[in-house]
């Protein structure tokens, strides 16, 4: 793989989470989540639909504040890829990727294009790609972000078997360079070494059973006591 082989400078690739609770639209969905991730490690997040994987990953990326608990590790170290691809239909593949490379101050996009098998498509407008091709482009963005912690929400949706293997290679190379990765998924990613965290046990309990309530509710239950 023709990727840069230098290790990451600070901020580094470790991430530790203790007693984290996350909320969606003000309602706690997960609580008591703890894990630690050091450079070179990958964590696969599993759990049924609607348990809160997306919410957890957005919180890790600093897009929303945690309801409770601590996240150690800078949000600036995280590169996030969500359900939406964040592509501009009218820009070409190369233009889309160059933009993110420029924003993150990374050098060339050639290696990332090659790693995701997009070199032949680089002149095409992103809007004319198939679903899987779009996803490959979204993943190539992680490579040019130059950030040590990759946080990805169902990265392999729509990918064919060959592309899943490409993706797994890219993640392995990233880990070998001292990076870390957190990925939510329902299917096998082809990363046997990764730790797995099943979120089912952390489903937030209703406040009546001792679960966390939103901040407002705390002062509120008393008011109506």
């Amino acid at each position: 793989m023709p990727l840069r082989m230098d290790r990451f400078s600070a901020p580094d690739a470790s991430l530790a989470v203790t007693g984290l609770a996350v909320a969606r639209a003000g309602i706690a969905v997960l609580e008591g989540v703890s894990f630690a991730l050091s450079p070179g490690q990958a964590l696969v997040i599993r759990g049924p639909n609607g348990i809160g994987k997306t919410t957890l990953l957005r919180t890790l990326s600093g897009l929303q504040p945690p309801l409770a608990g601590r996240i150690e590790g800078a949000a600036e170290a995280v590169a996030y890829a969500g359900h939406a691809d964040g592509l501009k239909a009218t820009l070409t593949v190369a233009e889309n990727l160059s933009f993110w490379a420029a924003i993150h101050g990374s050098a060339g996009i050639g290696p990332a294009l090659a790693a995701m098998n997009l070199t032949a498509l680089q002149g095409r407008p992103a809007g004319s790609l198939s679903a899987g091709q779009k996803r490959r482009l979204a993943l190539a963005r992680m490579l040019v972000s130059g950030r040590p912690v990759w946080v990805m929400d169902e990265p392999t949706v729509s990918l064919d078997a060959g592309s899943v293997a490409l993706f797994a290679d890219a993640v392995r190379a990233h880990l070998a360079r001292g990076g870390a990765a957190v990925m939510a998924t329902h299917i096998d990613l082809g990363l046997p070494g990764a730790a797995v965290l099943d979120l089912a046990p952390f489903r937030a309990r209703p406040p009546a059973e001792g679960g966390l309530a939103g901040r407002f509710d705390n002062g509120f239950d008393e008011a109506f006591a």
Partner: protein
Amino acid sequence: MSIWDYANPKKFMQTTDRLLPFVAVPAGLMLAAGLLWGFFLTPDDYRQGATVKLLYIHVPSAMMAINAWGMMLVASLVWLIRRHHVSALAAKAAAPVGLVMTLIALVTGAIWGQPMWGTWWAWDPRLTSFLILFLFYLGYIALWEAVENPDTAADLTSVLCLVGSVFALLSRYAVNFWNQGLHQGASLSLDREQNMADVFWYPLLVCLAGFVLLFLTLVLLRTRTEIRLRRLKALEARERMA
């Protein structure tokens, strides 16, 4: 042999390749002759003074602006009914030329208006409907530009051209209803003798012919470009497939 044979790109490219010089050269000659004649060799009008010289550009460009839209309408119909690609591309090729003609008519009219009516612009029906025509050209061109797939673009712009023509006529009528206006009536009819003296009339005819030929030249040239561009797109696509 039927006229539809020319809708075949091959036939069209071959024919126009030979034809183009025979249109372009007379266009240049007629235009030069008409404009020079009009500018240097005609007398001033007793009322309008030298501004009468604007006749030789204003009237032909105004007529071509309308005729170009008419040609686009016909070409769009041919595309919608017979699906001849050359026809759609010819309509696309004509639009910028029509736009420029409209612009020339508007600008020369505005310049003429200052001495004649004491204003650059008045909301006269003729002027107003030209402004609307200008907008239609802009919208038509913008729609071609905005659509990626050429066949889709051809379909959409053809529909726009049809609907737009209906509304352009409607506007013309509405505008008349709304304001009686300052502008000259049509004097370019067959019984022209009451309206215009021969000294103005003959150079005007030459200019008219020049503008028509220039329009033809440009449309043929631009259609050839569009066909090549289309070809280029198809080849690029094939290359990607391979």
